[in-house]
């Protein structure tokens, strides 16, 4: 009696996209340079590989979330694209109140 239905609008994905903003995942400032972002990403990947507890979670304006190597790699890749970075930067600035 499992019934399929078209009731759900996927707001979960939208919320997840905001919480997984690459600047939050990498704990980087919105104005950080490309080199700083690469360094932050590589440092986090090394810490996660070493099992460093502090690297397993990251802070967002909506509470702490789990950080994984996949998330870090995806964040680095997102911020390499200037057009995508613009959107993430704009959201990160707005959500953190950064100028």
């Amino acid at each position, binding site marked *: *009696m*499992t*019934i*399929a*239905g*078209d*009731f*759900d*609008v996927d*707001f*979960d994905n*939208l*919320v997840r996209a*905001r919480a997984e903003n690459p600047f939050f995942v990498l704990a980087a400032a919105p104005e950080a340079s490309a080199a700083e972002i690469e360094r932050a990403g590589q440092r986090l990947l090394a810490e996660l590989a070493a099992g460093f507890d502090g690297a397993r979670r990251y802070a967002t*304006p*909506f509470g702490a979330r789990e950080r994984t190597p996949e998330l870090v790699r995806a964040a680095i890749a997102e911020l390499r694209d*200037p*057009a995508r*970075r*613009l*959107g993430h*930067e*704009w*959201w990160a600035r*707005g*959500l953190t*109140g950064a100028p």
Partner: protein
Amino acid sequence: MVGARSDGRAVTTAGAAISFPRAPAARRGVSRAGMFAVVRVLVWTALWAIVLRNIGASVGTWAAGSLGPVTTFLIGVVLPAWLFVVLPTWIAFRFAVPRGMRRLAAVCCWMSPLVRARDLPSLTAWFDVAADAPARPSAGWDDLPADAWTALAAALQADRGRAAARADAIVEALAHLPAGARFPWLARRHGVEALVVSAVIRRDWPAAVRHARIGRGRLNGLFELCARGTTGEPVAPGELWLRWLVAPMRRVTFPLVRALARRDAAAPAARPAAAAPSGPHARHVALLRAAARHEVIDAGDVLALAVGWGTALDDPALARLGARALELGARDGAARAAAVREQVLGELALLLSCADGELPRAPADSFCAALVGRARDQQLAAIKTALAALDADRISTAHPLEAWQRWLSLRAAWERAERGAARPALAALWRASARDGLWSYACALSHQHGARAAWAVFTMFDWLADRAEYVGDLVAVLANRENARIALAGLR
């Protein structure tokens, strides 16, 4: 039934009432049901006569004429009546169901005068779902009718499967059943209770409040009060403890009630209010999170946010964003900035199309006007999508409850659009395709499944008549009222 037959798509507007096509089978069913009811009453009579005789004989011998009239009345009348009327369902729902003893629960319901014989198969299906029994695609399962018990079973299944929106749609439909559509008292009490408990277990307090609204009984009342208190409404500790005292499951609910009562008693006025997000970004995400939790979103809040976005995404702000895009090395900075604005507008429109409350006829500015137009378009697109899923030709393969749930999807989309004040667009859509499509669907459901679908068909025709009235289609109003009347007769 007035409307299309299962063998044709055309809908006639000529009034012609026909009986359910399975009427002969239904008559045979009534005969079998009658026999079943007689046997059931005979078993009750024999069993309770023996119980009553034994109680009377044992107590009479033990008391040896020493009992007063009040005690005699209590032992001779009140206690047996309670045993006969209340005890079987108490054992079924308070003892057997929590322990997964489905057969015992079914036997107890069979023995209870509070349960109608026609509800027993649906009730058994509800026991299966409540006990998390694996789905059994058996013939008996497929022959279940669509009624309040099977609807609650589907809602419970959806709720436990984290399909909260589907569960909410069923609860919403049950909350607005037309007069005459049965929603048994036991279903309101125990069926809804299982839904509320499921929401409470996963700490989804807004859902618990929504579900408890259609319920009855002391436990539903207690959970509703707890949920209201937990979501921030003031709750008097005295009332909370009183509700707990009279409700069942006191041992289980004690920690919850104690925590809530202590919190409210400690600082009823000094409880810090959650800081409201200030900027449009934070407010935007807060609304998205509320929508993801299936909380009710107010259209006014979305429009107020849109006003905030109007200044945060005005031409100077977009120019600054375009300049920053060029700094970062992106080509066509203006287009990149416009894409950000477009993304925000799209998400706001999604929120507004799902929000409660009327959409303004004359929006404040161009940003709000674009938003309202897009939300209306999304609402109408949702109706068309839901309408496309209502295929009368495929009704023979669909269970009546499944067909009813497909219609619920359309109903939700339609009513959202009505709240959005899209009356002219809805009237056009009604006459162009919705009226005939829905009519054919409901008629095909009735012709194909007969009495098993009568409950669902009655709610659909009643709703159709109301919608026809809303758009001023008098012929459809009369035809659907007549169809609803015929379906209601099939329910009795």
